[in-house]
């Protein structure tokens, strides 16, 4: 099976992670001021989700964890070694798993959808797929230059 070159994967990961940093930072800044993200098509889904008890873990807004996760993924795109490949896989796996949980909570518990959260979940899913592909295709190639 042929995979994209690792350089290509790293570039796409960097781009998607940068988008993720932007979205998570927007949510974190807006919510730190006591507000909530603006739903693009109107509606109150974003208000509802932001007000939910699930929007904080141990008193910390989960968007902060999002910013940290995306920054870590962005960092992994700058290195072509096994630590970056495996680290990127682990961080994106955690982010992907948590996104599944949060989407479940939005749909079945809070009963409201926030487009920004959905966008972040989609980005995290893409990052997980890219990071998994990178690990499968190039993991263990520490001793030779991966291309």
């Amino acid at each position, binding site marked *: 099976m042929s995979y994209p070159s690792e350089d290509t994967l790293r570039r796409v990961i960097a781009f998607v992670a940068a988008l993720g940093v932007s979205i998570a930072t927007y949510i974190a800044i*807006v*919510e730190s*001021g*006591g*507000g*909530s993200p*603006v739903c693009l098509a109107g509606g*109150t889904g974003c*208000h*509802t989700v*932001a*007000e*939910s*008890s699930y929007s904080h873990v141990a008193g910390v807004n989960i968007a902060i964890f999002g910013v940290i996760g995306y920054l870590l993924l962005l960092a992994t795109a700058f290195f072509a070694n*096994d630590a970056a490949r*495996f680290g990127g*896989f*682990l961080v994106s*796996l*955690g982010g*992907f*798993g*948590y996104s*599944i*949980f949060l989407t*479940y*909570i939005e749909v*079945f*518990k*809070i*009963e*409201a959808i926030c487009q920004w959260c959905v966008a972040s979940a989609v980005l995290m899913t893409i990052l997980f797929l890219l990071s*998994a592909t990178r*690990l*499968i295709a190039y*993991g*263990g*190639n*520490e*001793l*030779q230059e991966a291309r």
Partner: protein
Amino acid sequence: MSEGDRRTKMMQLASGAAFLAIVVVVVLIVVNSSSSDSGGDADNLEGAAEVSQSLNGIPQDEMVLGNPRAAVELVEFGDLQCPVCKGFAEEILPPIIENQVRNGEVKIDFRNFTIIGPQSLDAGAAALAAGAQGRGWNFVELFYRNQGGENAGYADDAFLEAVAEGAGVENLAKWNKDRELLRPEVEETSQEAQQLGFGGTPSFAIEGPGTKGLETLGTPSSTEAFEEAIEGAG
């Protein structure tokens, strides 16, 4: 370690991590779907006596708590289903009520800003109807103390009636009639909150001799921040 061994080891670790992640997500979802949220139990309301005691002797007129002639008015835009509002009611506002409101310096006006779901409107109207009998703040405070999960469906007629009774609403027939009539007012104050630029609950505004009309405060994060705002407005 050879490259092949390295790779095999890495794939084993990755598979283990993926398996662990699946287990954790499944457990989180199962725990959350089976957990019944505490609160929201019409048959076992808690805190009625404490609420009554904390508000005892403070004047109430509709949804305004405190001396009607108080120089400073603090306006709270809240949603009865909102857990953050519950936190404010239980942890941040009590010292303000016990001191600045009780001594006549400040009055607090609770206005509905319904953002959580349909039952927020039902609950908000029920609070206004309790306010029509001078028990609005008892209703709000007692509701918060017994709040269930967001949109968990607990805020039905039976729960609202239990809260009204616990809050000391005497004429339940009138309360029942009023809560239907007062629904538009809930929508009006929600629109007012949006016009003021608020995006979440609770949000606060303040008016007094030191302000230019009603000034927005957003969501002050501590009792001290409220005290400062009150001092500035007085």
